[in-house]
């Protein structure tokens, strides 16, 4: 930064010499200082009126999934949504997902997170997760990262630690392929990992379950897009055995219909 660095001094000296030699007597005194650097004492505006309102807060919510998943034996209903309130750096973030099958709710995962913007495209998130459905209730501390990866790939990864000392991880990603400006194909997948099995919640150690979909939506308008989809929801490895032992569905591909909407 400082001119104490000898290469910089040398460069400056050379430049100055060149400037003098070429007849444009212009000895530069470059100061690496922004003319608009923050000052210790803020400017006092007349009537305390700020001339630009760049510290606004905004409220948005979205249902990425709000869908019926058809099967001959009975149709499941699935939602996955989130909402946030806040400004450019600090937000309160709410996530909720769950599945209703035959009147019974499963995979209920609800999170309340503080979200901090840390770079152009990434946010850190920390808070609590509640597994709240018709199974046993679990409480977790949550910490994760969420944002837009290279190639505009939406990505989030969250690590959890439960009140019983267990660990879990959830990784989710999606991508929007624009077939036209309104017809959009979105592959999406969510993976859950646990360090220990939890038979009551049909969670197995290791990679436990997957929920994925290939959704084709049509944006009637930006905030309202009906879609058709092929979805897969299933248990893997140890969790698969647990589900089978409980005579439950271990995984199925289903045709789904839904609406993506936001405000």
């Amino acid at each position, binding site marked *: 930064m400082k001119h104490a660095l000898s290469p910089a001094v040398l460069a400056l000296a050379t*430049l100055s010499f060149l*400037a003098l030699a070429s007849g444009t007597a212009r000895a530069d005194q470059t100061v690496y*200082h*922004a003319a*608009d650097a923050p000052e210790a004492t803020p400017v006092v505006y007349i009537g305390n009126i700020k001339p630009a309102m*760049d510290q606004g807060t905004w409220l948005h919510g979205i249902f990425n999934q709000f869908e019926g998943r058809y099967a001959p034996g009975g149709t499941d209903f699935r939602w996955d949504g989130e909402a946030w309130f806040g400004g450019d750096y600090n937000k309160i973030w709410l996530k909720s997902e769950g599945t209703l099958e035959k009147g019974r709710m499963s995979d209920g995962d609800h999170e309340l997170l503080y979200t901090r913007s840390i770079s*152009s495209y990434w946010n850190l998130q920390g808070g609590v997760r509640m597994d709240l459905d018709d199974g046993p209730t679990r409480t977790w501390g949550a910490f994760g990262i969420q944002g837009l990866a290279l*190639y505009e790939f939406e990505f989030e990864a969250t690590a959890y630690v439960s009140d019983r000392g267990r660990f879990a991880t959830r990784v989710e990603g999606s991508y929007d392929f624009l077939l036209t400006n309104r017809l959009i194909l979105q592959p999406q997948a969510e993976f859950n990992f646990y360090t220990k099995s939890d038979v009551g919640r049909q969670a197995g150690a290791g990679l436990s379950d997957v929920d994925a979909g290939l959704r084709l939506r049509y944006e009637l308008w930006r905030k309202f897009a009906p879609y058709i989809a092929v979805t897969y929801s299933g248990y893997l490895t140890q969790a698969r055995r647990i589900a089978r032992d409980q005579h439950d569905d271990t995984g199925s591909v289903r045709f789904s219909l839904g609406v993506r909407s936001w405000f």
Partner: protein
Amino acid sequence: MGIQGLILSHFRGFLLMTFPSRFRGGVTRRRFVTGIGAGSLLAALPRTSHALSSTAVPLRASSGIIPPHPSDRWDMKVGHTRISLDGKTMHAPTVGSTVPGPILRFRQGDTVSINVTNTLDEPTSIHWHGIRTPANMDGVPGLSFGGIAPGETFTYRFKLHQSGTYWYHSHSGMQEAMGLYGAMVIDPRHPDPNACDRDYVIFLAEWTDVMPHDIISNLKMQDDYYVFRQRTAASFPKEAREAGSAGAALADRLAWSKMRMAATDIADVSGAIYTYTLNGHAPDMNWSGLFRPGEKVRLRFINGSTMTFFDVQIPGLEMLVVQADGNDIEPVPVDEFRIGVAETYDVIVQPKDDRAYAIFAQSEDRTGYASGTLAPHESMIAPIPPMDPRPARTMVDMGMGNMKPGESMKDMDMSADMSGMKMNGDMAGMDMHGMDMSHMAMPKMEVNDPGPPPINVENQMRAMMPIDRTGSPGDGLENNGRRVLNYRQLRATRPGADLRPPTREIILHLTGNMERYIWGMNGRKFSESGPIRLKLGERVRFTLINDTMMEHPIHLHGLWSELENGQGDYRPYKHTVISQPGSKLSYLVTADTPGMWAYHCHLLYHMDLGMFRTVIVT
């Protein structure tokens, strides 16, 4: 349609309206500015009697017709008016019940007083764009004064040192985005070298029924919310043809998506919600200006829009550009020019034929156009040309200089720490901008160089090799087969008033994060930055490096921006300077008026979301 129909038929002949169905929904979609008419006649009148007595040319709001006489006293009433245009209804803040507000005409050298009465239920203000006033008359709440409270009347009083075409608008909240704006014409004290047989104001703007707050909110959630011209699977064959091969088109796409940016990012807000207007008329309302063949017609173009750059042509007519931002320039004959938000250009045309000519102003993103007609008789319509292909951003816009597409993108790492950049900073000082011999005995110059902007929450890229683009008419206009105006062609008709070389250079990077929709300078938004302090009488060079991939029309209040475009002492005086994406340009400023001044991007949503600084002259 009952009352509306009555209004329509009543004003039909009066306003030369016609009903072509070419514009989207056609007849059923078009409505009319309800506020127009008698109310507007009373709302903003010069208080001298001679102006009232002259009825040869009726004062019609939005007519583009300049009042017959200047006045040094005006009364303006700011209020709400319910306005429908192109099926979009808004309870808009207006001056004199019309959008645009009335044209004010002044005379150079007069000390004018303007009474602005606020009948809104919120504070308002009027800023005189490009007018050099004392700081307390500049009309920016917080900087100039406390605003005009509801029910209050504020009297602006200042001496007009300048002449030419200017405009006024609110600087409170987002009132300007909703319709609080209008034109100003100042007669020169000496005979006008550009006097013409006919003289019209052509005020370009947009109209929408979406509230500004909602637009910003939507952009915060999804930055391409209003862009329906993105690259898709459906558009791929066309891109492959243009790129030469599918592989090249795919590589280009991957490069853009790797950067998490879009080559189709031309305008943040588009014709998806905007109806583009000319003197408050939607295209199908066919604003008309009359001429007799052979007459010289002066058209005073003002871009009073919120977010839209316009590319203006009058097919079949050569336009002689004679004034830029209110200041006379050596005439430049062109077929087309781009006008950035808040800029003004005066052009002279001389239609020889007994036929109608279209004034055709395409939005830069080609999602719509404003249009009107110059015609020898009323009710004539000129054919509207097809819109040009929309521009796509390239490596030049990314600040990669003149590299060929595809040549460089693989090596580009947005987060790379450019250790060599400091050196570039030093080199910047060596730039031979406006290098005339008067600069020979230049004293030591201080350079405020912030260095390359950080890549952070508020900034997503750096222009690694910003280039001088003053010779370019702008994206989408290069090599289009027409003569298109560029900044280098602007040459003042007289040398500058202050020929001192600058003693300080202030380098500013224009930055932003499209994804989060945050804008700023040097990687910071307004609320995180200090003021730019200038010493009274100081001569300063402002150098703008555009690290974003959009144009930014940068407006400095109260002081002239003398564009260093290679014209030496005849550099043009501007109040609003377009910084093209990936470019570096500079202008000189004499800080001769003390006070707090606004300095900002005139794309209003960029301004409000942080591309704003306070300049303090003491």
